């Protein structure tokens, strides 16, 4: 009963964040544009060599998502700080994990929507062909995004109290993201290169393990992070 009520609270936070984002529009457009821009820059830097472009595709795509996604995480808490709404949010009779769950859900959907724009651009720009089907690659994208968004949402809450949060968040987040980034890029590469799942499987398993660890740890620790 109480758990169901808490889930409804998390859903309310998610709805509030997404509605606010949808109406302001500026955030999504900027993040998606930055993602595409990073891909273009990688494309220019790598030159016209088709083979080199294909080999770099997964790494370039994940870095584009990481760099652009950081903007989204900062905005997620900026919404609360702008109008002084963080305190009222903390005052509702709900366990703190509901706030994390709501913001995680909103950020995950946001990042997946950005990926829906950035991934097709990467496929065209880097001339990527999948021999194992796009379904597996999409699954890896979702798994990688879960790990990325979990840590991003967690560290954004930590950095949100700092005046230098725009600088602090990447400094806190990127070192922690190395395992997720590595597992995501390697499993994406293995799938796009046509290797059967037994090659990519180990990386996917690692990615799942990181996701589970990060999700559980973030939910447990969030209570202490959000306290003033």
């Amino acid at each position, binding site marked *: 009963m109480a758990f169901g009520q808490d889930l409804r609270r998390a859903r309310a936070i998610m709805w509030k964040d997404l*509605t606010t984002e949808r109406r*302001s529009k500026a955030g999504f457009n900027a993040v998606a544009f930055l993602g595409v821009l990073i891909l273009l820059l990688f494309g220019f830097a790598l030159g016209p060599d088709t083979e080199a472009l294909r080999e770099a595709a997964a790494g370039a795509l994940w870095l584009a998502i990481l760099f652009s996604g950081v903007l989204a995480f900062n905005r997620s808490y900026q919404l609360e700080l702008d*109008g002084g709404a963080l305190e009222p949010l903390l005052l509702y009779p709900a366990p703190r994990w509901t706030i994390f769950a709501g913001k995680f859900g909103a950020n995950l959907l946001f990042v997946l929507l950005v990926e829906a724009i950035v991934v097709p651009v990467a496929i065209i720009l880097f001339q990527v062909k999948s021999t194992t089907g796009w379904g597996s690659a999409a699954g890896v994208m979702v798994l990688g995004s879960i790990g990325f968004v979990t840590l991003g949402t967690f560290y954004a809450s930590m950095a949100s109290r700092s005046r230098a949060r725009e600088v602090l968040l990447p400094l806190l987040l990127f070192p922690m993201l190395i395992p997720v980034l590595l597992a995501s890029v390697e499993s994406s590469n293995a799938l796009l290169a046509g290797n059967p799942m037994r090659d990519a499987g180990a990386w996917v398993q690692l990615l799942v393990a990181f996701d589970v660890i990060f999700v559980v740890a973030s939910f447990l620790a969030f209570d202490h992070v959000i306290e003033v």
Partner: protein
Amino acid sequence: MNTSEHSALKLEGLARRFGVRWALRGVTLEVRPGEVVGIMGHNGSGKSTLLRVIATVLRPSAGDGWVFGNHLVRNAVDVRRHIGFLAHSPGLYEDLTAAENLRFAAQMFGVAESGIPFVLERVGLGNAQDERVRGFSAGMQRRLALARLILGSPKLLLLDEPYNNFDAQGIQLVNEVIQEARRGRGGALVVLHDRRQGEHVLDRVAELGHGVVVGVSAGATPLSLVSAGGMTH
């Protein structure tokens, strides 16, 4: 927990430190059910910090506190069920409409959304319920924040300069909300700069100075320093 047998608020040596600076240095205070207590003091005396600690937004660095028998740290979620905090900043979402802000609050409070139109009418925003808060004046935002507070049906009101940005009608509305809490055997802690603003509703006034209660007075009588009887320096 049966809350009827407890004080609305009981603080024992409550302290809070920011870095090396003590904002509160041991506040002992009790608000009985049905009582409205004013808090006064100079800028930086710790009034707003006191409300934020009671509201569980800030953890106390030392001391204890209970809201209707619920400990401020150990039973923080239960404390939040009983309190309604009206802060300086309205804390609204500017890209949501007035009704959407209250719908979100109702879902977070876990109360029915059917009361939203009534509450909006009560605070005089019935005609503006579908307008985004971004276009609201400071007074309208304050009214909406008050509507959110009413929606939660709190037993203990924590009001930080509640009359700011309100016209005469708004001030009367604030006083009505305080009187309702009193009649419901709840309580209120009201931070004021000018004691005349709350003279019709206050039962006692406690004066804060440098993070401690330095004096209390009953009703509208002049403030007098006390040396004992629940005061801690």
